[in-house]
């Protein structure tokens, strides 16, 4: 069977975000594989190590620089990669058409991707892709097992967590806690250079953006930044309660 693991490239969490005009400008910003997607790559590799016979294919849709993230996935142990190169920003509904199209043409049965994108803060791609394919979906998984076509595990929901059971084909979104992604070793980095990285043309997937991005701004909320010295705990506590009660008026 084939597993698709979707990879996005995002600014490093600690990097400062800047705008030019009214769009986010990533020029000069350190970009990395989205941490949430790394759990998906690792999950695919572990399913195989646990006995699933699978070819694992990493997929990225985005600018040329995404090749770096795909090479990282190849060095982690993914078999081959598909890069659909585009500068266009596709929202989840549009992008799901591309991913679903690729899943169909590859005959994939499992798609893994991060639960929330670290750049666009979206959680929608997994669900939208599952809907296009008519597949089941499991979001926010923190435990995953595959036995034949039976998929079991645990995932977080609004008010706690659930154990689940379903069957392939399925889309699974991943998050911290699922596993500890491996670091590529030097021999594997060398090997990855020889692995296939195929370029697909976005046009073949017939996806058009469904949203119009009007503007972006960085709103920094002005904070009072009033610091109280904690040397005298009683006095500091009394002062804080007084400020919250009488100045901010947030406690009674």
């Amino acid at each position, binding site marked *: 069977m084939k597993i698709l693991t979707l990879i996005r490239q995002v600014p490093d*969490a*600690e990097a400062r975000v800047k*705008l030019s005009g009214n769009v986010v400008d990533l020029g000069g910003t350190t970009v990395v594989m989205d941490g949430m997607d790394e759990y998906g790559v690792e999950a695919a590799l572990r399913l195989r190590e646990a006995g699933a016979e699978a070819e694992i294919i990493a997929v990225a849709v985005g600018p040329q620089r995404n090749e770096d993230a795909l090479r990282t996935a190849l060095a982690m142990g993914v078999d081959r990669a598909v890069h659909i190169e585009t500068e266009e920003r596709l*929202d989840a*509904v549009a992008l*799901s058409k591309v991913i679903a199209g690729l899943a169909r043409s590859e005959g994939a049965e499992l798609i893994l991707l991060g*639960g*929330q994108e*670290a*750049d*666009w*803060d*979206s*959680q*929608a*791609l997994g*669900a*939208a892709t599952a*809907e296009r394919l008519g597949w089941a*979906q*499991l*979001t926010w998984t923190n435990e995953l097992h595959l036995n034949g076509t039976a998929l*079991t595990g645990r995932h*977080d*929901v*609004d008010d*706690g967590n*659930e*154990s*689940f*059971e379903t069957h392939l084909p399925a889309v699974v979104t991943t998050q*911290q806690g699922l596993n500890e992604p491996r670091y590529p070793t030097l021999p594997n980095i060398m090997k990855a250079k020889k692995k296939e990285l195929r370029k697909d043309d976005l046009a073949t997937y017939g996806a058009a953006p*469904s*949203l*119009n*991005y*009007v*503007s*972006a*701004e*960085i*709103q920094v*909320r002005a*904070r*009072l930044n*009033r*610091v*109280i*010295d*904690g040397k005298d*705990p009683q006095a*500091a*506590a009394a002062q*804080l*309660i007084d*400020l*919250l009660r009488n100045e*901010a008026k*947030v*406690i009674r």
Partner: protein
Amino acid sequence: MILVVAEHTGGKLAKASLEMVSAARSSGREGPITLLVLGHGVAGVAAEAAAVADQVLVADLSELATYDAELWAAATAQIARAGEAHTVITPGSRSGREYAPRVAVKLDAPYLEDAISLSAHGDALRAQRYTYLSRVTETVEASGPVVVVSAKPGAFAPAAPLGAPGEQYDIDLDLPERRVTITGRSVEKSSRVALSEADIIVTGGRGVGNAENFARLIEPLADNLGAGVGATRAVVDAGWRPYAEQVGQTGKTVQPGAYIALGVSGAVQHLSGMGKSKYIVAINKDAEAPIFKVADYGIVGDVSEIVPALIEASRR
């Protein structure tokens, strides 16, 4: 019509539902606001919903006794089509953001995710939303015969009741088979106010030291203030607190009147979950901790010394 999918828990309408009605009212889109109540044994929820909506559609069906993304999406899309809804609003909760994209694909509609404001621009619907771990505010526009929206929890003021309650209609649905079986469920119940509903949240970070300190310091302070209890990822990973209390990128996003962060350093991922709070209070012994940059009030000091004094000072 504007179709709003109600969120409810434990037989009660959730605050998120009132927020979504408010989002609908503020959207500048015309037409009756219709609340769709999906579930089983939801008569009480429907009655509460009628107080704020022009009409309430109630699908009280045994198949809907527990949530399932595919069933919720199928039900919502069916009603949206039948009622020719031009706007569908779903909750910005984890489950809402799980089925809303399916609704959008079913309706061949654009999807405005996690909206913090809505406004009509001609035929288009504009939403503001946060991106880049909540550091950027984007304005996004969608058009077409129908637009699907999820409304960020806490971003819209809860709607006030209407003068006269809306009509209630029972509906039947053609639902698919469930493909996902839930074999176990652990609900993390807290006697305190839920994070999504809390006006004040007291959160402990790794600086609290251990699970015992958390119970000894954070809980009594929260009780004195009538606050919800939050935790950082590190605290949840260490097993001191349940996941339901986690605030941040991989936990809940909150926007209370006051967010009191104790022993929290303020990693970007945590800030993305609470940075929009009205007032932020930080207590940390490290004066250089990033949390102080976003704090209105800060005390540089040891939580194990300051918090007992705060518990004393906040006792009513």
